[in-house]
């Protein structure tokens, strides 16, 4: 976790991050907690926070979707994260 986030941990919102498919393989866990600063978030900003916190996801940046409480956001939408919100990092699976 980058230092800029660690310093904000006390004043932020704690959300749950869920990893699927390749993201799970790269990060090495199924889920984890993450504290993010209060404020409004766009899809783009959420994506960059996730990749900044887990740089190992860089290799698939742009190839996964992020769902907030099981719903994908529209690009223009801004939302405020609440305590306990679930953010799912979902790359496509291609095997069969």
């Amino acid at each position, binding site marked *: 976790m980058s230092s800029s986030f660690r310093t904000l941990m006390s004043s932020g919102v704690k959300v749950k991050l869920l990893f699927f498919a*390749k993201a799970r393989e790269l990060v090495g866990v*199924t889920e984890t907690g993450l504290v993010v600063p209060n404020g409004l978030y766009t899809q783009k900003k959420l994506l960059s926070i996730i990749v900044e916190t887990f740089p190992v996801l860089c290799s698939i940046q742009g*190839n996964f*979707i992020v769902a907030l409480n099981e719903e994908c956001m*529209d690009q223009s939408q801004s939302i405020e994260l609440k305590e306990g919100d679930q953010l799912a990092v979902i790359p*496509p*699976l291609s*095997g*069969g």
Partner: protein
Amino acid sequence: MMGLQEEEFQMPNFKQLLEEKDSEIMRLKTLLTKYVPKSELDQMSNSHPSTKIAASTATLESPENLCSQLSKEDVARYSRQLILPDFGVGGQQKLKKASVLIVGAGGLGCPAAIYLAAAGVGTIGVVDYDSVELSNLHRQILHKEHGVGTPKSLSIILAVSSLNSSVKCVSHHVLLKSNNAEEVISQYDIIIDATDNVASRYLLNDACVLLKKPLISGSALRFEGQLTVYNFDGGPCYRCIHPSPPPPETVTNCSDGGVLGVVPGTIGCLQALEAIKIAAGLGSSFSGKLLLFDGKEGSFRKITLRSKQKTCSLCGDNPVISKLIDYEQFCGASPTDKTETLHLLDDCSRLTCQEYKQLKEDSSPHLLIDVRPPEEVAICRLPNSVNVPFSKVEDPIEVEKIRNYIQKLDNKNKQVFFICRRGNNSQRAVQLLEPKLADLNVILRDIRGGIQAWAEEVDTAFPIY
């Protein structure tokens, strides 16, 4: 009604009852068509299965014709789904007229095919270019031991026809590509993506958008499965959700990542279910939705996807893709799930299995590092090898371990060899470790083709997985 008259001796009361109900339905139908506009009538027939028959008889000359479309045998075979509210005779007849194409006769395609056949889908097409291998049988459940080496599409046809001989099953023993996909796909109403690679997924998506076909897409790896219905009912296409393919080196296939057979089995069954619902006019539960199945956790999550994108390069307002493209080029990977063979090292940094065998026979002192994951090492390994998994090869603790091993070797002849499953990671390991071990004056080399080549070229009793 003809079909029922045949059973008159068994159930005279039912016959009379049915005739009464029929005339009642006809009377109501006449009233409805007189007083209710046709559009509203269609809507009613969709939401109320009981009025569906009445409405559909309006287009037929007499009620007798309706029953004659399902034979006595069909009625008996499909009775449990015929009496199902929301499905019924109308659904069965639609299934019988429907044609579904399954692309991929593997872990997803097998269960999908057999359930579609069981349900009575009129025509099932199967596309696959592969032959059955022993390593397929744990998940591709329609293939048989005695069928190893024979075309996969053929074993599906055999299984389907022995379950339901009234289903027309067509084998397409081709590798689906840009130049033949539209010809095959255009013959079918509904397409099931049961493939195992990225290039085929984009190809199928593009062809289905161009030909206006619903695409039921399933995938599976390890304990996880995914399912979405694309290009249906105003929903998004695959490119709306995933505009660009992942870098090929980040894509894990079943051969490298592993998969538990029941996982694609579960997704394949759900693909069949969606195909049946779409064919029967019941719509789909996964248009614009993504099912995430986690077999280890036992969880099903349903994610709402972004809607169809105006900016989509294929189905958007200003599409730039108007015909199929080169998907191998677009994805940087061939339309198979085979692992590509890399050539990262110079020939002088590589050793063949035969050369390594000779070196062992000469008792030449050396260190053999097996960089496969411990799960694979547990299956089979070469004697006197040490295991440093590739994922940890740069870990300072592991590097120190390797340094210690090397320092124990005979001073004059410090040879270090790396081996993996197929000879790709062993080359990568040499590249990663060369700078870290440069001070030790050692030669790092990899064994070409890995454990698999050893099994094929040196020790044929050695297992291949």
